[in-house]
């Protein structure tokens, strides 16, 4: 097999000239020439047993690229022909490659790396069937390392790196067409055998290097001789040094993956690669190696030496961060953990205290701290000697404040790489972790640090003189107004992590922080008030708004902005899906001081937002929590007054948003505080905001008035209007609050105003109008006596209905339908309907559904009238989408059927109107895309009933109707959905499928259908059936892997359906036969994404069950095309093994699982073999 190749010189000549073509500049060769050259290499690499010729090439050719290709060919062929090769020839091949590299120190780097990669792949493949002993390899590498020759050492490093990257099963691993199972096995074997040895070897070299550098002076002459001899710059030594560190980093990362316990899922591996923040969990066998304090010392000392080189410093700190995350069985007991941690903390403190931190070290150091705080149990942290713990906390405090200041500077300078910001985030996160476990630590030990960190945060965010915002190093403040687009996140989202931590620290030191925030905010509000008054007087004199200097105002707005954000995060949480509660620290703080508090004065401060807090007698004896809220209300009041004085243009919409955001967050936890939820309740808080209190009523009224004012003043500020209407929704979505809201006159006039569509509410953007409608509907379900309730609906919903009906029932509606006023009325109604649907809750779905159903049928009529107005059609479909989305899951059988019928009619009309319609304007395609997307969304929503169903046989409707017998069921979800697909399919062009969202939605839909209603597929009309099958084929073969997987998942239910019906000549039966061939080819012949093996395997199995004869035929054809007897036999054996456990194949779960298992082996054994074809 390894005999000298015939015609070797010719092959070499051919390859070398092809290489010349490929390396030539683009202008020198034609595309055909280039393609031909590529083809030469491609077929060379696929040639059978190219070992002899490759050896020959490596030994004789002088063209680097050809050498590279020869190495690649060897690597691929070894994997491909592994089973057929003699173990001794593999071994000699490996030895040859290694010696080859050793003897040629001057090889091009990429050639050398490729050859070493081939060696690593051989070792990896060999490790599986134990034909290669890893120990031997490490022995060889060990010898290279102890040679003392830097060149050889560098080479050894490269070998280790290649081995690691091959065995780590990461994205860097060569894809050699073997299953994930195989890669996983290799990894496990390597862990048992090679990993620790690699680690020891690496440590040895590192020790040697660090010793050598210690002896730098004495070594210098030896060094110089080395340099002179090799003519190598010092740099190259450094670069190999750095690669050792990288190697070790990789290794430490790897350890985690390898020792994480249990088999790693694919997604887990992907996650592991994605995140840097992996933790180290070595097995017991590593104890000796890793608990040796010299290991840690080594890293500290290495870092000290290389910290000025920013790249290497990051690597060495990353290694330390890994050591700081160490946990698991490596520690024999807690005391071992304590002494390990103590050693780490001591090393860290002495490292930080002795140096001025470089920019490049910030992130690394914060990672070390964050890891040790996250990973070590609280009991271990508290078991540290108390002095050490205190110095650690002090150091952390100073570091946090300093990083915070540097982060602020980075922002001023608008740096691209915000290293201090990243480091600051990490440290604040660590504080959050610490403070959340406060009860484990000595009482009050975090109060002083919290005050310091909190103060420094506030200082960085306030303008001079109190703060340092926008001050650059030399103390000059910069003030430039930049353009900000809507895509930029609001600070409250952008900095939510920071703000959560700061808020939490503020709670820990509530005694200091709450009064501080209050006094700062009150001060700013007074100044803002004064500034606005002065501006007003100035304007009366000059009437030119442009002449106003906004600098002072903007500074105040920015101060207030941050103070409100911090206050919001301090006073309340915004939990998703949980009941919002007053934070316990805040509650305790208020209780603790309640004896010193005068409740009446507190209420007076709260109830007089128009007055200066300090002007109220006894203002020092007020509850601080309420006082902070009052400060925000004062801000709000100044804003409102300014709008009334026509100074809106001077105000900041950002500040308006902050106020709305704060009040909403606050209201969720504090307004109508539920005493049952708390062990202890603060009297001031319950007196001011409890249920049935005047305070609560007053504040609801105040908020409502504010909302109404905002909606008219700020209609042009979409985000502010949105925050405002969200506050309104919050006020009414809880029944208890809604009960108070509906007692306010303002609420009723808001409802009337909106219902009559009079200005200024109609200026609001459509999304705000929808939410407003939603709020008004939610309010209608509050407690009212029946007369009032009737009156309310008469004010809110009936005008909508009446106006709509009287409009569309006009005789000449068709003629006037295009008039602008009519169109606007229609659009407003449709928007309102969407809002009403959004207000659906389980306890109001009954009445809302009935109300909306009446409209839905009228909407279908509108489809006809507005068939030539795409934007209206779009909106009509959207109403259906919303209703289905919000309500279908609550609907019982009869109600669902009504909705199905309505949807079906909608789709029929849509389809009729769009047949053979041609539009030539530029946006036609976009309009169609919108329609189709909405229709598919509608269909998917309807389908969702099949797996999310809260209905209980019309339980929620029981009082409304005498149940219609279920047998009269006329339309099913399947009918509607299939009808919809009927419409969608002909319109889905391949062009439209290029819109990713449309493509995904489409394939999601058809897979759903195949899975949920496979019995409906054979009944489809011929055309529809054909295009569905074509879609599946297209999706399987030429779309993204996600879509391909969806299509494969659709095949099994289809095949099962065929098996059930037993019709041998149905179109579906014939189609599945075609799919059998497709899936067979995909799995056996094509290089496929290994992630798809399971989905494809399941599909293949059910298809094989259905078409056993055809499957045998496929196998026969494949086998008969093999000319090589050995390959034939291997293939035949593999196919026999594949189906052995499932003969005859039946659709039985157990057999299917067995088949899938054999399939994995099959792919591992012969997958690579067949790819040769």
């Amino acid at each position: 097999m390894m005999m000298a190749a015939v015609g070797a010189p010719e092959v070499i000549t051919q390859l070398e000239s092809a290489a010349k073509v490929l390396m030539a500049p683009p202008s020198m060769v034609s595309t055909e020439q280039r393609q031909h050259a590529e083809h030469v290499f491609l077929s060379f690499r696929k040639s059978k047993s190219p070992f002899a010729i490759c050896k020959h090439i490596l030994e004789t050719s002088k063209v680097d690229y050809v050498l590279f290709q020869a190495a690649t060919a060897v690597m691929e062929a070894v994997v491909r022909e592994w089973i057929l090769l003699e173990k001794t020839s593999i071994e000699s091949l490996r030895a040859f490659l290694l010696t080859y590299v050793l003897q040629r120190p001057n090889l091009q780097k990429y050639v050398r790396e490729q050859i070493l990669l081939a060696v690593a792949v051989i070792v990896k493949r060999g490790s599986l069937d134990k034909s290669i002993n890893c120990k031997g390899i490490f022995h060889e590498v060990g010898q290279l390392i102890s040679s003392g020759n830097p060149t050889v050492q560098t080479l050894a490093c490269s070998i280790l790196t290649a081995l690691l990257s091959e065995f780590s099963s990461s994205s860097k691993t060569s894809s050699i067409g073997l299953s994930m199972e195989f890669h996983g096995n290799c990894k496990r074997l390597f862990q048992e055998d090679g990993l620790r040895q690699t680690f020891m070897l690496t440590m040895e070299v590192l020790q040697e290097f660090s010793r050598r550098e210690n002896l730098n002076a004495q070594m210098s002459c030896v060094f110089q001789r080395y340099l002179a001899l090799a003519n190598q710059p010092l740099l190259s030594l450094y670069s190999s040094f750095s690669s050792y560190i990288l190697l070790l980093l990789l290794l430490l990362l790897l350890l985690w993956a390898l020792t994480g316990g249990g088999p790693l899922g694919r997604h887990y591996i992907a996650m592991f690669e994605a995140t840097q923040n992996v933790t180290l969990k070595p097995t017991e066998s590593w104890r000796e190696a890793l608990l040796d304090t010299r290991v840690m010392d080594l890293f500290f000392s290495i870092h000290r030496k290389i910290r000025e080189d920013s790249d290497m410093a990051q690597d060495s700190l990353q290694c330390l961060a890994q050591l700081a995350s160490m946990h698991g069985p490596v520690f024999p007991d807690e005391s071992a953990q304590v002494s390990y941690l103590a050693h780490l903390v001591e090393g860290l403190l002495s490292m930080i205290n002795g140096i001025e931190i470089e920019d490049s070290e910030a992130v690394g150091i914060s990672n070390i701290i964050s890891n040790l705080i996250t990973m070590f149990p609280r009991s271990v942290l508290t078991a540290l000697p108390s002095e050490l713990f205190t110095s650690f906390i002090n150091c952390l405090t100073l570091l946090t404040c300093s990083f915070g200041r540097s982060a602020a500077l980075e922002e001023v300078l608008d740096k691209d790489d915000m290293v201090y910001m990243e480091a600051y985030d990490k440290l604040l996160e660590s504080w959050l972790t610490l403070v959340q476990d406060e009860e484990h630590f000595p009482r009050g030990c975090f109060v002083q640090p919290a005050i310091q960190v909190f103060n420094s945060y506030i200082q960085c965010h306030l303008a001079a003189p109190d703060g340092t915002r926008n001050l650059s190093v030399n103390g000059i403040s910069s003030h430039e107004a930049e353009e900000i687009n809507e895509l930029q996140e609001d600070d409250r989202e952008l900095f939510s992590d920071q703000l959560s931590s700061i808020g939490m620290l503020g709670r820990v030191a509530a005694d200091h922080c709450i009064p501080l925030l209050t006094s700062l905010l009150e001060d700013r509000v007074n100044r803002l008030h004064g500034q606005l008054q002065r501006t007003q007087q100035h304007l009366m004199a000059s009437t030119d708004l442009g002449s106003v200097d906004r600098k002072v105002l903007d500074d105040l707005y920015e101060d207030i902005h941050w103070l409100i954000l911090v206050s919001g995060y301090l006073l309340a949480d915004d939990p998703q899906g949980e009941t919002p509660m007053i934070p316990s620290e805040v509650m305790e703080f208020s209780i603790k001081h309640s004896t010193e508090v005068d409740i009446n004065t507190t209420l007076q401060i709260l109830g007089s937002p128009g007055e200066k807090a300090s002007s109220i007698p006894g203002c020092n004896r007020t509850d601080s929590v309420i006082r902070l809220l009052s400060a925000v209300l004062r801000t709000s009041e100044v804003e409102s007054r300014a709008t009334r004085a026509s100074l809106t243009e001077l105000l900041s919409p950002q500040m308006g948003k902050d106020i709305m955001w704060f009040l909403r967050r606050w209201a969720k936890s504090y307004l109508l505080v539920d005493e049952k939820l708390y062990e202890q309740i603060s009297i001031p808080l319950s007196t001011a905001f409890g249920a049935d209190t005047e305070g609560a009523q007053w504040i609801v009224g105040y908020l409502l008035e504010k909302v109404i004012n905002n909606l008219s003043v700020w209609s042009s500020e979409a985000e502010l209007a949105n925050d405002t209407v969200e506050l309104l929704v919050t006020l009414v979505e809880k029944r208890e609050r809604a009960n108070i809201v509906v007692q306010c006159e303002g609420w009723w006039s808001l409802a009337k105003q909106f219902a009559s569509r009079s200005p200024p509410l109609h200026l609001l953007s459509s999304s705000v109008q929808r939410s407003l409608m939603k709020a008004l509907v939610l309010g209608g379900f509050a407690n009212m006596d029946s007369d009032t309730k009737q009156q309310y609906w008469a004010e809110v919903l009936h005008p909508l209905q009446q106006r709509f009906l009287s409009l569309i029932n006009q005789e000449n509606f068709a003629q006037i339908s295009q008039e602008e006023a009519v169109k606007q009325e229609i659009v407003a109604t449709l928007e309102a309907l969407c809002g009403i649907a959004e207000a659906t809750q389980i306890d109001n779905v009954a009445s809302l559904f009935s109300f909306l159903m009446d409209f839905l049928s009228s909407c279908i009529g509108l489809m006809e009238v507005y068939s030539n107005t795409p934007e209206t059609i779009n909106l009509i479909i959207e109403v259906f989408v919303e209703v289905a989305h919000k309500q279908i899951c609550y609907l019982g059988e009869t109600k669902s059927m009504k909705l199905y019928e309505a949807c079906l009619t909608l789709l029929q009309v849509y389809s009729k109107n769009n047949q053979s319609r041609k539009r030539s304007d530029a946006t036609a395609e976009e309009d169609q895309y919108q329609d189709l997307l909405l229709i598919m969304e509608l269909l998917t929503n309807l389908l969702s009933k099949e797996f999310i169903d809260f209905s209980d046989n019309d339980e929620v409707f029981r009082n409304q109707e005498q149940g219609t017998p279920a047998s009269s069921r006329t339309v099913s979800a399947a009918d509607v959905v299939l009808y919809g697909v009927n419409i969608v399919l002909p319109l889905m062009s391949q062009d439209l499928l290029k819109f990713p969202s449309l493509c995904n939605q489409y394939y999601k839909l058809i897979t759903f259908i195949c899975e949920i209603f496979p019995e409906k597929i054979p009944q489809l009309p011929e055309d529809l059936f054909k295009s569905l099958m074509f879609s599946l084929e297209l999706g399987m073969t030429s779309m993204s892997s996600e879509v391909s997987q969806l299509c494969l998942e659709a095949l099994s239910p289809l095949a099962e359906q065929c098996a059930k019906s037993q019709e041998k000549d149905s179109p579906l039966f014939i189609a599945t036969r075609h799919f059998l061939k497709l899936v067979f080819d995909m799995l056996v012949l094509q290089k496929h994404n290994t992630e798809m093996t399971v989905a494809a395997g399941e599909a293949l199995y059910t298809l094989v069950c259905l078409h056993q004869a055809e499957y045998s035929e496929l196998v026969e054809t494949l086998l008969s095309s093999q000319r090589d007897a050995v390959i034939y036999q291997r293939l035949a054996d593999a196919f026999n093994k594949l189906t052995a456990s499932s003969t005859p194949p039946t659709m039985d779960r157990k057999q299917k699982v067995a088949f899938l298992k054999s399939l994995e082996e099959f792919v591992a054994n012969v997958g690579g073999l067949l790819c040769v074809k």
Partner: protein
Amino acid sequence: MADPDLDFTTGESGASATYPMQCSALRKNGYVVLKGRPCKIVEMSTSKTGKHGHAKVNLVGIDIFTNKKYEDMCPSTHNMDVPAIKRTDYQLVNIAESYMSLMSDNGDIREDLRVPESDIGKEIESKFEGGEEFMLEESELDLKTIQSLSFLFQINQNL
């Protein structure tokens, strides 16, 4: 319809050709007058100068006659002109010397519109030449073909 100097501020029917709307109430896929041209809004975004500045609306529209792209930016409190667009279905009755006779739903006939010089125009002509009697049978289909044109024509008339 290709008249670039079309003055669409004077309407023949007496109805206002445009009406004002606050920027914030405009919507994507709606219509607006940009640089004097009636446009369909294909992109709409907001921005502001400085964190405490007021919103400005950036609009990108496509001229419904010429498919040309126009952009504009204005404070969100400002009013923009929105073209009043009316669409009517006509039945094609005759083509004489490149002018079409079109009948509206209420029986009015107009003959002032040329067959457009475009692919769709050619399609209309070829369908028409297929035979008058035949036309009426197929009216549904042909009506729809014209619809998009009438959409353009009608705007032309009313603006």
